[in-house]
Structure formats: structure tokens, C-alpha cells
């Protein structure tokens, strides 16, 4: 199946803005972030197809993941 991963802010370093992957089923969101060496603690906002996502959810063909790091300064 085809999964699109969009990276934001510092998560773009070394990964670019977007990657389109072909992965085997079943694949969960957690498998994707592990594949890109992203620590779970660095996933502040996780959207799957524009909605609040879940690291354990099995992904479906054509899903779009958006991953944002924590922003906490003031």
C-alpha cells in the first residue's frame, strides 16, 4: 500500500517535506516513525488524513500522515 508522510518544522531535517512510501500491510504509524528514526517524544501532533491520529492504528492504502514536533517556547 502507498502511504504519504509529511514532515513539519525540525522533522524536515534530513527527511525533506514529504515522502511517499510503499509498505506492506499491516503497518502502524509507530512503524513509520521508527523507520524515519523519529522518537515518539518528538511527535507532538500526529494527523492521519487531517484528523487526530494514533501511533497504534493500522494504516490504510493512500493514508496521509502529518507529523509535527513539539513547539513550547515563549
Amino acid at each position, binding site marked *: 500500500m502507498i502511504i504519504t508522510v509529511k514532515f513539519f*518544522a525540525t522533522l524536515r531535517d534530513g527527511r525533506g517535506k514529504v515522502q511517499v512510501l510503499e509498505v506492506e500491510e499491516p503497518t502502524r504509524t509507530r512503524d513509520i516513525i521508527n523507520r524515519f528514526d523519529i522518537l515518539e517524544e518528538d511527535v*507532538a501532533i500526529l494527523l492521519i488524513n487531517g484528523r487526530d491520529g494514533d501511533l497504534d492504528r493500522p494504516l490504510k492504502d493512500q493514508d496521509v500522515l502529518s507529523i509535527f514536533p513539539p513547539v513550547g517556547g515563549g
Partner: protein
Amino acid sequence: MATMHRYDRNKNCISAVEQEGLAQARVCVIGCGGLGGYNIEMLARVGIGHISAIDGDVFDVSNLNRQLYSDMDVIGQGKADVAARRVHAFNPDITITPIKAFVSEENAKELLENHDIIVDSLDNIETRKTVAKLCQQLNIPFVYGAIAGWYGQVSTIMPGDQTLEKLYRSKVKSGAEKKLGNPSFTPALIASMQVAEVVKILTQKGDILQNKVLFIDTLDHEYWVQPLLE
């Protein structure tokens, strides 16, 4: 008369009745640093009549790159006190109350109650969660803003909303700002959006960022409002 003349340039955006409403409003800004300095300045200039400025910290040389109320003469002085002096210098009619304290679970209720809106100018995620939780209990809107380097985000959290849970899935206490720092332009930009939210909440006009987050990426020029859907 002098008061109305002061707000001459507001009046095509904010009516005389709305301006009077802003003068009656009680807004609390938590943090008087990067976001806080700009938030306090713009809230006061637009005519918010009662502002509480909370910060337990003193100005340091490393604040000079971005914190509006920092200058060479106030290094070592309390940020809340300096903010109050600066506001008083351009509008003595505003009641600005400096509070030299760090907000914690122990003192948050006492500091935040009796305000119409709380404006986030904090520098860490943990205290934001404490404040957001208390705003829920006290039934007070919380105008969230956070920055890191080239990036910032803004949202308006009304009582009952679970917005921070969606913005901070993990338990981290700080974010990308630890690596990136904060340059001068990001706090000014995010604070501008926060103050516009405050004015819209108080005047009940326009579209607020409830259950939405505004993302700003000044590095790649990406700016958009993301709905926070379940």
C-alpha cells in the same frame, strides 16, 4: 475626550461601544518575556483596561535579542515590574498589575481567577498544561501561543475544549525551542495573532481559532489553519 482621541485609529476596526468593553476587560498574561512583552504591549495599546502581568524571572542579557521590555538598564530587574512601568509610560489609565511569581499548581487558581481571558506567554509545555487545566475549571478562555525558532502556533481554547491534548501527545516538557532558540521575529508574530484572538473574543466578532491551530513556518513560508478534528 483624551481617551477617545487615543483610540482614533482603532475606530474603524473597533467601535466606541466595543472599545469601552475592552476598557472594562481583565486579561492576564502569564510570562513577560518573548511572547509576553509583545502581548502586554499590544493588549495595552489596543485598550485592554486591566492587565495582570505575571513573571517570576528577571531580565538577562540573553533576553535582549527578542524580549521587547529588555534593555541594558533593566538587566537583573523583575520582568513583571518592568512591563508595568513600560505600559504606565504610554497609558497611565490602564490598570496593570505586576505579579512576581512563577505559575504552579499551588498558586494558579489564586493568580488566574477573576480574569476574562488568560494569554499564554509561557516558555514550557508542562506549565501550559497546568494553566489550561485550571482555565477549564475556572471557565476562562485560554489563548495559547508557542514558538520555536522559525516556527510558531496559536489556538484559542475555550472551556470544554481538549486542544492541548492534541497539540502535545507526548509527555515532553519542552520542544524544538531548546535546539533552535527564539529569534526576534517569531514572538512578535505569534503575539500579534494572540492579541487579535483576545480582541475578537471580547468583541464577539470574526472567526476565532477554536478547535483549530494556526501554524506558522517562516522558514519555508507555510501558514495555515489546521482544524483539530477527532
